[in-house]
């Protein structure tokens, strides 16, 4: 048994070394804990090189992201540094019953649209319904759903949304990007040289900068953006995250002249205590939230879909 114990340790240790870089990314995304803060940088280099080789191999055999190889070729031009208006670095909780209202300022370009749906598991629920609905109304529109669960803007090592969206804008010549994410974001951020605690002004500045990367690049390329705000969350940390995220999403959309669609009046206000249900048109309680208090029931998804489709239809040129 002692020999077996040693054997397991050797197998575990070898694989930990060979996957050190990936392990570091995983631990950072999952537990906000970075190995690279404690270990010399050189230790990560062999595993990084091996991981790149494996990634190449995987893209050759069609595994993982089939469009990854194409994306790698694309180097988006940097976003113009000057943003219309800098982010206010303090978040004030809105009074009970208040919320950031929707912004509908953009008009779509005439003709068939090429739309990208980006986001986390929130978007994974909404996108299929919206795409189905819009496909029926506009069979000539091209729609791509890249939503990926457990992603967000905080951890770029795990999934880099700003870069992915910029690349997609180039590859697909998009006319509209719709973003719905946030519950994975209320966590500390690892910058190249330091760790920044969630909610601090520096965190807010960096988080807003990531939103700006998306919005700035889209505006530069005449691509419309609809950013969906988050509704109330049952878990306290997620609820605090929703307060911060909605503030940033609204502020940046306003600064760049893009659209913000508030889901709060549809599903639940962040400034009020969490409730699973809301009355329907006949005053009967309608269960809108999944068991986890984060995601949505089919009825909740349907409400968001209706609002988003109506928002897109209204943005069409007359």
């Amino acid at each position: 048994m002692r020999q077996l114990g040693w054997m397991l340790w050797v197998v575990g240790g070898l694989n930990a070394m060979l996957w050190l870089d990936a392990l570091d990314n995983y631990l950072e995304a999952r537990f906000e804990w970075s190995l690279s803060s404690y270990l010399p940088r050189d230790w990560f280099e062999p595993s990084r090189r091996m991981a790149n080789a494996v990634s190449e191999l995987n893209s050759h055999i069609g595994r993982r992201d089939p469009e990854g190889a194409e994306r790698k070729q694309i180097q988006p031009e940097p976003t113009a540094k000057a943003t219309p208006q800098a982010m206010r670095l303090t978040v004030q909780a809105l009074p009970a019953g208040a919320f950031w209202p929707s912004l509908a300022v953009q008009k779509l370009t005439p003709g068939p649209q090429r739309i990208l749906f980006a986001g986390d598991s929130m978007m994974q629920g909404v996108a299929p319904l919206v795409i189905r609905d819009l496909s029926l109304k506009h069979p000539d529109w091209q729609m791509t759903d890249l939503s990926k669960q457990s992603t967000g803007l905080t951890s770029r090592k795990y999934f880099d949304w700003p870069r992915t969206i910029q690349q997609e804008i180039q590859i697909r010549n998009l006319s509209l990007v719709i973003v719905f994410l946030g519950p994975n974001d209320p966590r500390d951020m690892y910058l190249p040289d330091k760790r920044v605690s969630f909610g601090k002004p520096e965190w807010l500045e960096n988080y807003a900068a990531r939103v700006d990367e998306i919005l700035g690049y889209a505006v530069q390329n005449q691509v419309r953006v609809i950013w969906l705000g988050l509704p109330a969350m049952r878990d306290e940390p997620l609820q605090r995250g929703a307060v911060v995220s909605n503030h940033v999403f609204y502020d940046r959309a306003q600064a760049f002249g893009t659209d913000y669609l508030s889901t709060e009046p549809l599903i639940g206000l962040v400034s009020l205590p969490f409730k699973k249900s809301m009355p329907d048109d006949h005053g009967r309680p309608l269960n809108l939230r999944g068991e986890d208090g984060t995601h949505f029931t089919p009825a909740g998804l349907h409400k968001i879909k209706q609002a988003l489709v109506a928002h897109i239809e209204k943005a069409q040129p007359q």
Partner: protein
Amino acid sequence: MSFVSPEFALLCLLFFPLYWQLVNRPRWQRTVMLLSGYGLYATWSLSFAAVLLAYSAGIWALGGWLSRHNKERLPMALALMLCVSFLVFFKYYEFLRASLSAGVVSLGFQSSLPILDLVTPVGVSFFTFQAVTYLVLAAQQPNQVRSLPDVLLFLCFWPTLFAGPILRADKFFAQLDAGTTGRPREVSLALYWIVLGAAQKLIFATWLGDTFVDPVFKYPEQQGGLTLLAAMVGYSLQIVLDFGGYTLIVTGLARLLGYELPVNFRQPYLARNLQDFWTRWHVSLSSFIRDYIYIPLGGNRLGLTRTQCNVVVGMLISGVWHGPSWTFVVWGLLHGFGVVVFNLYKQAQGPALPAWAGHTLTLLFVTLAWVFFRADSLTAAWDLLQGLWTNVHGFWHADSAQIAQLGLFTVVFGFMCRHAERLQTGVVAGLQSMSRWTATCVLALLIYLVIALGPSGVPGFIYYRF
């Protein structure tokens, strides 16, 4: 915490050596096992762990009470009702409320059932059925009633806690009493199962899911008929590799702890008829349904009609057990009526089909039924099936390279199923003949390859939902 996550691997490295160190102190070892079970469960939610503790204590008390009412029917019925009502309340309340409300409202009345903010504890379907086996054991064999720590360990035995296989109380306690636990058993076989299970899940099941199944089930209207068919075949393969892979991993882990788990799979896609399929697929559930529902209902002892009714009821419960959704109801009923048709054909002494025809028919039926199991709603399942013959893109609109990959994979999978036992014997013999260091290097390399060919992130197991 997933059994294929890095944090679980790290915990194993710390836990197993400690556990084996205590081999000569079985009481301590069981305490460590119990604490680790609750610790793992608490990683999902601390309140879930408290609920499980309270539930297990309740089951222990009910077991003691039943043992004092030797084989009386009323106490046993009461105890079982209490035991199962826990599952019904947590897992099915919202489904029942919504269905009842819809029915009542359609009749012009108001529903008064409130919407409750309930969260279903992970693995509730599994540990509730395990609790049933303990209560029946306590009622039928009062001398088998166990101490509180034993019952707590049985209901919180972490290899089976989250997604089975469903343990039977008598088999589990027999292992404890025999003193065979605590020492790793058949180490080469256990390691083979763990690596094979991880490969099945991380490499093949996720590849099938990502490539053939998920995009198609999400957007069936965008696909041609052949792609829809590929998704159906892909899901049939994905679910057996996913759940089979999970079962292999936990069975291997249990062997390293010195426990033997019940068999859950016997190459289900080699079945020659539907009845045969149910002796090979999720065996710990199907045998539970047989012994604790079908036989108590009368089994095949009360005439042909009653027997077929019992079959349908058993299959319906098996379907509903998976989750509060009409798709599982239809899946269970489909299998129930399928078995009834097979029984009636056998009863009518219809001509025996050649083996290949029976095999093909069974596979077709099972694949068709999986559509309801996988789809988000009955409408979605029906849309997908309808797309097979009425499709704006036409039947042949598909990525031919992907279809060829799936075809090749299916053939290789079929071949591996037929020769799985021979392969296992060969690999285990090979591992045993290697020196310790060679075996360690081979194992490290295999795990490296599994991770390299697996997806990024930690994928969830299909059966964790149930």
